[in-house]
């Protein structure tokens, strides 16, 4: 037993992954597609078997039809627009505040020591528990969602920016001083560009939590937005419509994430 364990644990020759790179990428892709097909197949089989009550597992065809219906429905587009604007606004506010806070904390060891614990312990707290407070402050409309989304984006961006600040190559700062850069020039021409990758990563994380928070808040209490629409469809028990809408939300979130991810990669 021990002997075979040793043999399998021995590292493979380093040429193996290199030569198998393209082939293994293709194999991974095939496995991924196969997995999706299996899930679809099982889903369809379960749906047709009638094992579940009513339309809990609707057929793929009915989901596709609902998908088509949604895409031509002006109500869907209006609600999508509301959620998109809420998310963009909360990300803009949260990221701007987060970058500034991150820079201040990253630049000042004393302030960092004083405030870092707050950020660390508050950041994993689910923001949704503050939703009732936001409703009281900002009302049922979009403002309360934006406030909550901004709060959740803020922490991710601030933490990532502060970390990026500490990783800056010190020599670049000395170069800036040697050319007598003003504080503003130091910030815009050295600190920000030097931290563009951690900042973009923070914004990507922040966007993720902002989308989650905004949607979640919309499902709780609101009169517009995709989260509201999801609850509307749910109360009508339109299961194909519900699944179609979930797929759309999934695609939008994935696309946004990929976009910022690509931006970060281009900058690297």
């Amino acid at each position: 037993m021990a002997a075979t364990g040793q043999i399998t644990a021995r590292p493979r020759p380093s040429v193996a992954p290199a030569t198998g790179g393209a082939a293994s990428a293709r194999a991974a892709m095939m496995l991924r597609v196969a997995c999706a097909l299996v899930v679809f197949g099982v889903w369809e089989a379960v749906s047709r078997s009638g094992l579940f009550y009513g339309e809990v597992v609707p057929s793929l065809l009915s989901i596709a039809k609902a998908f088509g219906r949604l895409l031509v429905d002006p109500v869907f587009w209006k609600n999508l627009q509301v959620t998109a604007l809420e998310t963009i606004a909360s990300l803009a506010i949260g990221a701007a505040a987060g970058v500034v806070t991150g820079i201040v904390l990253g630049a000042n060891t004393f302030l960092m020591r004083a405030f870092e614990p707050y950020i660390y312990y508050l950041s994993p707290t689910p923001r949704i528990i503050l939703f009732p407070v936001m409703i009281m402050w900002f009302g049922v409309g979009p403002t309360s969602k934006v406030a909550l989304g901004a709060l959740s984006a803020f922490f991710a961006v601030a933490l990532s920016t502060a970390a990026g600040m500490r990783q800056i190559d010190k020599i670049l700062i000395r170069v800036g001083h040697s050319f007598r850069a003003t504080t503003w020039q130091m910030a815009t021409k050295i600190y920000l560009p030097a931290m563009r990758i951690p900042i973009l990563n923070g914004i990507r994380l922040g966007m993720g939590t902002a989308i989650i928070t905004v949607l979640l808040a919309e499902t709780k209490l609101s009169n517009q937005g995709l989260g509201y629409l999801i609850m509307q469809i749910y109360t009508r028990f339109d299961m194909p419509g519900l699944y179609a809408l979930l797929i759309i939300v999934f695609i939008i979130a994935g696309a946004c994430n990929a976009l910022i991810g690509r931006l970060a990669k281009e900058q690297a």
Partner: protein
Amino acid sequence: MTSDSTIARPTAEPAMVIDDVVKRFGRGAEIVTAVDHVSFNVAQGEFVSVIGPSGCGKSTLFNIIGGLLGDYEGSVMIGDERISAPHPEVGMVFQEESTFPWRTVIENVAFPLELQGVAKSERMDRAHHFIDMVGLASFEKNYPSQLSGGMRQRVSIARTLVSQPKILLMDEPFAALDEQTRLLLGDKITQIQQQLNQTTLLITHNLTEAVQLSDRIVVMTYRPGKVKRIVNIDLPRPRTSDVVGSDAFGHYVAEIWNDLREEASRGMADSEAAASRRSAHG
């Protein structure tokens, strides 16, 4: 050979006067004197090197003259001004890799002009001129990551020259490069220095480099860093790296090494003693 001289060449007005500079670090019993009563002048258009073993306070002196270390005793004067912050007339080139990775070569070189608010077309023209001078004209649109270490240091030098400082202050700019590249870049530096009549102060621990490039060499002692001797290098100009093979060059190297060896040995003995203390405790 006329080697001992603390007076600058009488023909030229001193561009910089370093007078009785002292810098101590730490406090109480832990106090360390890094720079100890250092005085010398740098004449207009002159190339002066400061040479010494590690721990002779060269880098501290570099930071004081560059204005990055404002708190010191004595004075470093440019005209009537005592340096206590980075001075517009002093251009610094650092030992470390210091190009901005997110800027192309020409954007890197134009950086100081950008800070001064020079119009874009003018700063590109001026940057182009100095990139050409360091021999990187065909790499203007490249990013530093696409260049070799020697090319990146030339970008840094062009970036410093573009603001046309009265005094070029360099801290071992070629320390990370191999010997051949270093000799060839030395030629480039000599050529540029002659072309611009650029007053230059080079901090180095490389003897060949110092003799190859300098008009005068300030030899520093190991801790505390004092001026041990100032040597005039009367090698003909224009000079190229061919000079390295000449008898006169060999004499200068031998002579300065004589002084330096003593200091370097003290430095080595010190660091070995520290190492054995550490291993005895550990």
